[in-house]
């Protein structure tokens, strides 16, 4: 466990001693702030018009502001998370530091979870700093608190899935650019694979929509916690962390 803490501390140090963490978190907050502002401004305009029109009901702040904001935040995450994960293994593979690291009495699992946890910390800081948007909303519009919590739960679970996938990709290449490109492409593919549901036939289509990251996230941003969605993300994490482990260990048995 000592090695785990040491690696976690070092990875956090790298994130904060370089501009990576600051830039990624800032861009994320700027963009999500802009999306929140647009949704909120649009909502206030609509609601003023609705007041003048008797009989026009059915608009609420959860559907019109929270739901699109969480959706947009997940899209920004799709763009930003590969940038946080790309260097985790690729950089050390290229420099040879991974070889040296594995000559120390370190278990692969300690190395993997050290890096995973460090990236998680950055990610949590990133989404935690977006508290201001629901808080502002709560001050002026008093939305349901439930969908806010499920929305963040959804973002959290999806973020861990992105990190697990990004780690796996980073562990199989020496190039950070390649790692970023592949993890971005893979996440986008998992995201949109549900689109094929309409024309892939009933059985295959169901499978495709089941493995889609987007379909899973929709429920959370609507305020629904479905255990199937949670299990999906947990499985996604386990699968990719397991594959990363195998990729790290492979040098020991690959003749």
């Amino acid at each position: 466990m000592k090695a785990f803490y040491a690696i976690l501390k070092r990875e956090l140090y790298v994130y904060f001693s370089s501009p990576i963490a600051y830039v990624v978190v800032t861009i994320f907050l700027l963009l999500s702030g802009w999306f929140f502002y647009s949704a909120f401004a649009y909502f206030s305009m609509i609601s003023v018009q609705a007041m003048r029109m008797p009989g026009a009901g059915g608009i609420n702040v959860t559907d019109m502001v929270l739901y699109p904001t969480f959706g947009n935040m997940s899209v920004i995450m799709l763009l930003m998370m590969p940038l946080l994960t790309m260097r985790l293994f690729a950089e050390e593979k290229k420099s040879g530091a991974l070889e040296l690291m594995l000559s120390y009495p370190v278990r692969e699992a300690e190395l993997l979870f050290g890096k995973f946890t460090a990236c998680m910390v950055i990610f949590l800081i990133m989404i935690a700093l977006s508290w201001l948007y629901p808080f502002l909303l709560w001050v002026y519009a008093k939305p349901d608190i439930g969908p806010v919590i499920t929305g963040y739960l959804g973002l959290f679970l999806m973020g861990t899935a992105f990190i697990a996938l990004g780690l796996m990709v980073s562990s199989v290449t020496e190039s950070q650019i390649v790692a970023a490109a592949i993890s971005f492409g893979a996440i986008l593919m998992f995201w949109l694979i549900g689109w094929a549901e309409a024309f892939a036939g009933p059985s295959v289509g169901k499978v495709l929509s089941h493995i889609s990251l987007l379909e899973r996230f929709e429920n959370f941003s609507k305020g629904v916690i479905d255990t199937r969605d949670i299990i999906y993300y947990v499985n996604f994490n386990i699968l990719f962390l397991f594959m990363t482990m195998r990729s790290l260990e492979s040098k020991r048995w690959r003749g």
Partner: protein
Amino acid sequence: MHYVKRLLYLCSKPMIEVDHLTKYFGPVPAVLDVSFRVEEGEIVGFLGPNGAGKTTTIRMLNGFFPPTSGSARIDGLDVFDRSLDIRKRLGYLPEHVPLYKEMRTEAYLGFVAEVKGVPARQRQSEVDRVIDQCGLQSVRKKFLGNLSKGFQQRVGIAQAILNDPDVLILDEPTIGLDPKQIIEIRELIKSFAGYKTVILSSHILPEVSMICQRVVIINEGRIVAEDTPERLTGKDKRKVALEVKGPEAEVLARLRTVPGVVAASAEARPTDHAGRYVVEMGQGEDVRDAIAQSIVAAGWSLLEIHTLRPSLEDVFIRLVTEEQGRE
């Protein structure tokens, strides 16, 4: 007596035992049937041209990848089955020292100490110890990326000796250093003799003969020789260089008549009146006094006489060419 020694050697438990180690990369053998032993406290040089299989052997020893066949044991433990236990007792310096550029020397060594499992209370004193031992006091607070090559190499050695490992594996420890730094690093490695088992790879022959008690010479993945530097060089024919003032043809003729001289040849003339000659002596014979007397008796002046020690370069070239001749 020789057999008794041999028997004792076989019975003693070596620190490192490499047994018919073979590694193929695809169809190409990088290391072929390599066997050697290193006793506890011994410094052994691993010598060979670039691409001979030194790094491959070293990587198998520290468990980076497995051999295709054969085995390697450190202190009786297989380096693959007991990888974690082995790695606790092993210090490794890779060929290109991969340091984290964004970390400061002291923080980096503290990190390595923690990863290596040095208890929190002893960590600072352990880091201080290696900083002193490797002469890193002046760069304690500097970023590793800003250090000179010599200091980076020393930080590399410092991380290897953290947590006081029993076995040190150093891959080209003096590569890219200036002569003064090379001497410092050599002295540091020499100071480990007796209480650490060291394998040192190098393609620089004089370096190995200076530091190591024993040399394993490897070429094209195979061991071509294994002995002490003295005995390896002793196997070559001994030569004597002379500077004699006298007519060249006559001097040569006279030299060839001296009993024990196998061959004599003239080298370039440094001055108008004196010539340089190289005389090859028969195995185990010392004919220096006979040569000197013979020259003086002929009435010429002997300006200089000295034995030419065959360098490890000569030995190496001989061994490699012998090997090629056998195939």
